[in-house]
């Protein structure tokens, strides 16, 4: 997705009912220490001006219609950086009654409305460090490579049976109580 944005990315911060932790860290990216503006990233006040949405929060039902409106307002091509565990997968709220449960659940709703899913980068963290968010924005721009990969470990075992000796004792007991 990187090539669309050239060297400068304008981001719009969309809070869908987050706790403020991520939102403050998003602002922190623009503060002097992290200063993401030196990388051409600029925070804008309207979705109409933006290339990228920095998305926070687990999407509450009250915010849902407004969130959809804002997502629709951003001109294509666009990308979404889902910041924080709430946005990535609903976080600690994932199964609560008033929460849609993260951006993927939101996308399922977008599907039924016929709105295409924008390409998305997920930044887990609670809240992620500003640097972690910066990394996410740069990943969306294609300036850095992805480090986090799915890891699956499958245990290989040859001997699943109970050890010798054990089996006889157990079998005896088993025989005995089957006879009851």
């Amino acid at each position, binding site marked *: 997705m990187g090539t669309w944005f050239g060297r400068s990315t304008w981001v719009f911060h969309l*809070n869908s*009912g987050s*706790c*403020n*932790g991520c939102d403050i860290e998003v602002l922190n990216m623009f503060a002097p220490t992290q200063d993401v503006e030196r990388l051409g990233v600029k925070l804008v006040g309207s979705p109409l001006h933006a290339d990228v949405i920095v998305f926070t929060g687990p999407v509450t039902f*009250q915010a849902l219609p*407004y969130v959809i409106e804002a997502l629709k307002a951003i001109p294509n091509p666009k990308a979404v950086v889902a910041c924080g565990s709430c946005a990535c997968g609903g976080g600690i709220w994932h199964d*609560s*009654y008033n929460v849609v449960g993260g951006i993927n659940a939101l996308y399922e709703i977008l599907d039924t409305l016929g709105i295409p899913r924008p390409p998305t980068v997920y930044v887990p963290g609670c809240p992620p460090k500003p640097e972690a968010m910066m990394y996410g924005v740069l990943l969306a721009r294609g300036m850095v490579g992805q480090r986090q990969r799915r890891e699956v470990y499958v245990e290989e075992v040859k001997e699943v049976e109970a050890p010798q000796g054990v089996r006889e004792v157990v079998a005896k007991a088993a025989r005995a109580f089957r006879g009851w």
Partner: protein
Amino acid sequence: MRRASGSEALGRVVETLKRLGAESVTVTQEGVVLSTVTKDRLRDFVRALIREYGESLRHSTCVGADLRPVRGSFSVTHVLALDCLRLYLLVETEAFGNSPKVPSLTPLLPAANWAEREARDLLGIEFEGHPEPVKLILPDPWPEGVFPLRKDYPYNKKLYETPAQVRGVRGEPRFFSAKPTPPSESVREGCALIPVGPYHPALHEPEYYELYVEGERIVEARYRGFFVHRGIEKLAESRMTINQVPFLAERICGICGYTHACAYCQAVEAAARIEVPERALYIRSILLEIERIHSHLLWFGVAFHLLGFDTGFMVMWRIREDVMRVAEALTGNRKTYGMNLVGGVRRDIDEGKASLVLRMLESVEGEFRRFCDSVLSMREVVERVKEVGVLTREDARRLGAVGPHARASGLGIDVRVDHPYAAYRFVDVSVAVRDSCDVLARILVRYDEVIESIRLIRELLKNMPKGELMAEYSDLPPLRIGLGATEAPRGEDVHLVITGRGNKLYRWRPRAPSYVNLATVPTMLEGERLANAPIIIASIDPCFSCTDHVVVVDLRTGVRRRMNLLRNALTRG
């Protein structure tokens, strides 16, 4: 600022409560008195209390609970603060049946307004005589007659269970028919409506204001919040065990989360009579003060930004970065410290970390003082905030303002002094009070508080005793009531807990400070110029994720006199 206290005063209060007609009076924990009243007598009882204690009685919150599975009734507990006697009075009343009714206290204590409506939304308790019995918290499309906090509502039953359900008739999603409630009829002809939000450059959280203006001047403000209602209480009461909830409590708010975690733990510790080791109390206090510094510096930055002084924003956030780094070194994360469990804390502050903190304090104090002193001597900043957004002492008291906001209106209330918790009982806290009641006063109060917090951390670090970090305790006793109160950076934060079986909570109700402070915003906006609205709203340091709830506030009711005064002040200025 130490005030009279002790068992004698407590005895007198218990006597008074009995005399005024409480059915039973029990001291549930240090500084908390629970009285039960029948619902027919509730209003008379509270009226008598107001007569007895006058303006020192403050309505803090109201907690409804569905006790049908254990007692066959609903209960409503009003939390009243008697700051001068260092007491919290809990007034409990019961209502039976599936559509319970209790008399409303809002006509007597206006601060009860939101809390009662919240109980109405979430539990279906009807408050008789409530002046505006309309929906507050739940989303607009929420069905009538469904109450998520009742015990028969499953916590994970979503409003819409499949994405397709969101789509209503004729292909139009049902959600988009959800409009903010229509404007009240009092809006005058010829007023222009300026909608602000829910997504707006001046706001960093979703909330929705409708400002009605005549020319430049605001005549009415309406607020629809509660975009951030995430069902915290229900999650805690159903899915989680007591030691998982501190992490949930911390996520009520990403800025002042630790204070919520502390208040929650204190409430459970009080209910279960757990003695927390002293060292853990000190560590909690130190972190609370670190959080206060970071939160206040953040606020200074945002306030300067809204004043059009972006240099101030940048400098404040640079100074704040040191605080964040120290928090990261102490707790493992810049925010959501995750330090608390019921009974103590998880990590120690050793020598090395202590010196890190001291070094940070040194640099923050120097830079903060130097910068703010020079800013506060700049006329262009001072003129911009002087006599703007006035909240008089009387209004602050009537609406139940707390924290720096109340202290800037001349009310000397501070939970750290009035209801000492954690390690604040071992140190003297000096309370910053200003009485010019405007935005400037709020800036100055927070300035003093940052300096005081720095002093407090130094003292706490010096006096910190050696010892354990965690108390030993067995299973939680069921159905005990516990109250925890802390002074969050934004004001009094009250958590009420009823314990359940199997190390779970039966009921947990956090009440964040912005919840009461937000109710003062319309009063401050009345008659102000539109350009001042952002800084006035921000001057209470609102935290909508803490508060998350719909309210329509009519500025025309009440306080019309001051409008003229203000107009005069502004034309003079």
